[in-house]
């Protein structure tokens, strides 16, 4: 559940929290695009580091680290698979002439695999900062003001809001099944996966039941009765928001420039010299 914890919004006030969700979302998209544009280790490290100030200004270090820890397992998988398949079929993106036999080629492969894992971490990092500092209400408001139909905005914010509820419910279900002698860690790999069936089925069933109940409760409170909804709060882009958007554009432009016109040095090659 630690991954969810790393995405759960807590109400605090910081300059980052006060930014307009639309500006922040634009920044996340830019980070996303830039992370996908580069597959070298060096720019990805830079990308990882330039997000740090956001985390510290927002004061969400603890939650942020927890989300990274949650992502670590997948990152290790990505690294391992890239390394194994890079070794089995070199060439392609690594540009190594097969077979992989010299130390420098191993280092290049290692660097490339690390870069792939780091790319994933950077994606998780930017999403984590976004969700940690944006309240679901503001997010819904931002969607609505971007002319997304209200039904979709509502479904989206409800889904986000119910993530912690579901996480808690999953914990209760785990307790209930453990009390009936279920040992999640018992057995071989296949058995271990099967052990989760008694957890998943009640979780899915109760989520469906809950959504039907929610729909009935909302309709009995006249949901959707008025055609045109107005909001008490209206989001307005301020100076800071424009500044963030501008920085994002510059980062994007710089990234595109570097991609096409600069030869990115490989760390392993540089260190060898």
């Amino acid at each position, binding site marked *: 559940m630690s991954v969810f914890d790393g995405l759960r919004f807590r109400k605090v006030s910081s300059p980052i929290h006060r930014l307009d969700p639309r500006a922040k979302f634009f920044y996340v998209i830019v980070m996303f695009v830039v992370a996908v544009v580069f597959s070298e280790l060096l720019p990805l490290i830079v990308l990882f580091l330039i997000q740090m100030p956001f985390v510290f200004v927002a004061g969400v270090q603890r939650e942020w680290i927890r989300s990274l820890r949650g992502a670590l397992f997948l990152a290790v998988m990505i690294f391992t698979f890239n390394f194994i398949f890079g070794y089995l079929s070199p060439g392609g993106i690594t540009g190594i002439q097969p077979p992989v036999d010299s130390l420098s080629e191993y280092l290049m492969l290692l660097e490339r695999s690390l870069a792939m894992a780091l790319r994933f971490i950077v994606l998780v990092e930017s999403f984590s900062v976004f969700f940690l500092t944006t309240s679901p209400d503001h997010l819904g408001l931002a969607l609505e003001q971007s002319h997304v139909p209200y039904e979709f905005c509502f479904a989206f914010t409800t889904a986000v809001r119910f993530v912690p509820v579901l996480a808690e419910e999953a914990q209760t279900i785990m*307790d209930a099944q453990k009390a*009936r*002698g279920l*040992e999640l860690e018992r057995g071989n790999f296949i058995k271990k996966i099967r052990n989760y069936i008694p957890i998943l089925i009640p979780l899915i069933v109760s989520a469906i039941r809950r959504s039907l109940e929610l729909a009935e409760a909302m309709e009995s409170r006249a949901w959707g009765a008025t055609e045109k909804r107005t909001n008490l709060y209206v989001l307005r882009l301020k100076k800071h928001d424009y500044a963030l958007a501008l920085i994002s554009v510059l980062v994007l432009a710089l990234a595109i420039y570097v991609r096409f016109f600069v030869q990115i040095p490989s760390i392993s090659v540089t260190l060898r010299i």
Partner: protein
Amino acid sequence: MIEIKDVFFTYPNGVEALRGVSLSIPDGEFIAIMGQNGAGKTTLVKHFNGLLKPTRGEILVDGVNTQKVSVATLARNVGFVFQNPDHQLFCETVEDEVAFALRNFDFEEKVIKRRVAWALNLLDLEEYRKTSPFMLSGGERKRVALASVLAWDPQVVILDEPTIGQDHKQKERLRQFIVQLTAQQKTVIIVTHDVEFVAECAPHVILMANGKIVAEGSARQMLTNLDLVTQASIAPPQITQIFLGLTDLGLPTDLIDIHAAKEALLDFLEANP
């Protein structure tokens, strides 16, 4: 025998749910734990089968420290029926549901068959043997959950809010059922807000507030003491409330039982014709 020695428990989110609870529950005892929401009742009983481990202090179940063994090992002797049956039902048939725990505990198929038949008979569920638990009514699902725990015949049975959503007839059956269990020297522990049910069953009552045990004693002592009842945020049974309102007439105020109340009223009417 369950011994609780000065137990403290703090949830990972920092909520201190138990603050120094000491208690000893002999075999064959029928206990009701009562108190306001958030008093720590469910947290306490979750310690008895090791779902939660004390932050400080220790719990011994038949001399075994819960800190040192797995939930599955403890669950063999301590059955726990959760409040919401939807948190544990997942099998295709009621029969499989009841057999789930027995399979986890490695019972032989022959024994499982016998035990399942016994438990279904006990809770009057035989006609639903091949039915999906999801097709049953709320009360029936609750009985299936109960059957699935009783099937392995644990020495201690913990029932979390067993009377919620049950009609009068089912409550009465539950009461008889508990009497039957205690007659077999089983320990029965219920966590409940249902004052009337407790008044009818007359168990040993433990009142909790703010993570501590406020008082313990017979149901009659506990439920007729206005100070204690107020501390634990529960209301005395209706019978007691009537008699508390009639103290001017010299009627006793320590009654929780309908029959005793009738006797007292008849005596009063005879003495004051």
